[in-house]
């Protein structure tokens, strides 16, 4: 979109990221915590893409490295997505296993590592 400054996207990303962080701290159900982590990842993705689309001032604007930077941002997003997928698969598997052992998945009761 042409009329939108970069600040808008970054602000949205920042807000989503913060929300995710708060969620991780605040919520007790590990699934929701996972969701919040996904939220953070997506905010980072948004930031990547925004920076890929908006070239900062003082950026060396030869077509090569413009294209390169656009591509770099999108590649990062792709990798983040893949990693997130793997993480979710394994993480939810872990949650299922835990749930199978003990009948609830309150994260505050997974404190076997207490000193």
């Amino acid at each position, binding site marked *: *979109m*042409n*009329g*939108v*400054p*970069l600040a808008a996207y*970054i602000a*949205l990303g*920042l*807000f*989503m990221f*913060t*929300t*995710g962080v*708060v*969620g991780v*701290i*605040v919520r*007790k*159900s590990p*699934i*929701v915590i996972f*969701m919040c982590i996904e*939220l953070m990842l*997506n905010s980072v993705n*948004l930031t990547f*893409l*925004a920076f*890929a*689309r*908006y*070239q900062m*001032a003082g950026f060396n*604007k030869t077509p090569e490295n413009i*294209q390169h930077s*656009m*591509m770099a941002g*999108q*590649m990062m*997003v792709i990798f983040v*997505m*893949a*990693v*997130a*997928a*793997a*993480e*979710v*698969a*394994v993480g*939810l*598997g*872990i949650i*299922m*296993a835990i*749930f199978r052992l003990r*009948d*609830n*998945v*309150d994260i505050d009761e997974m404190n076997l590592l207490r000193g």
Partner: protein
Amino acid sequence: MNQTVGGVTITPELLMFGAIAGAAAICAVGVVAFNNAIRSALCLVINFFLLAVLYFTLNAEMLGITQVVVYTGAIMVLFLFVVMLLNLGGSKLLHEKPDPKKFVGILLGCGLFVILGAQILPQLTKVMPMPLSPELAKFGGPEAIGRTLFSEYVYPFEAVSVLLLIGIVGSILLAKRRL
């Protein structure tokens, strides 16, 4: 017709973006705020969908659609699935007791937002998207992404594929009772 507010000219695109972004932000808050895991998941789905739309506005249509396929179509379905499975076991894990940690966390979160925003955002209000020449406009399409992915980023790509394989194996090992 475009009046400026705080050095930012209000354009129809900006308003539209504001609508989408606001909805996304509300959904993000909803993810955290809803006590009910399903509702959180639903909010997250909507959020991701709106993000996909934003990706389109950043003319990364390939990634936008990938976002929908991967997140909305696969990951969140997985979430819903698991939430429901656990919900069968008893809905006690869905409602939570109040907790002093909440207030501290929210406070710190706001602090983080304020500090980072105050540092970063003012520098970016003037940065506008660069005009797209037709050949640059192609740089969100499947062809460009495919070329780059398989030429320049092939090693990370392979590494990620191995990672996914490991994820598959690991999740099967975790999920199966008797192998």
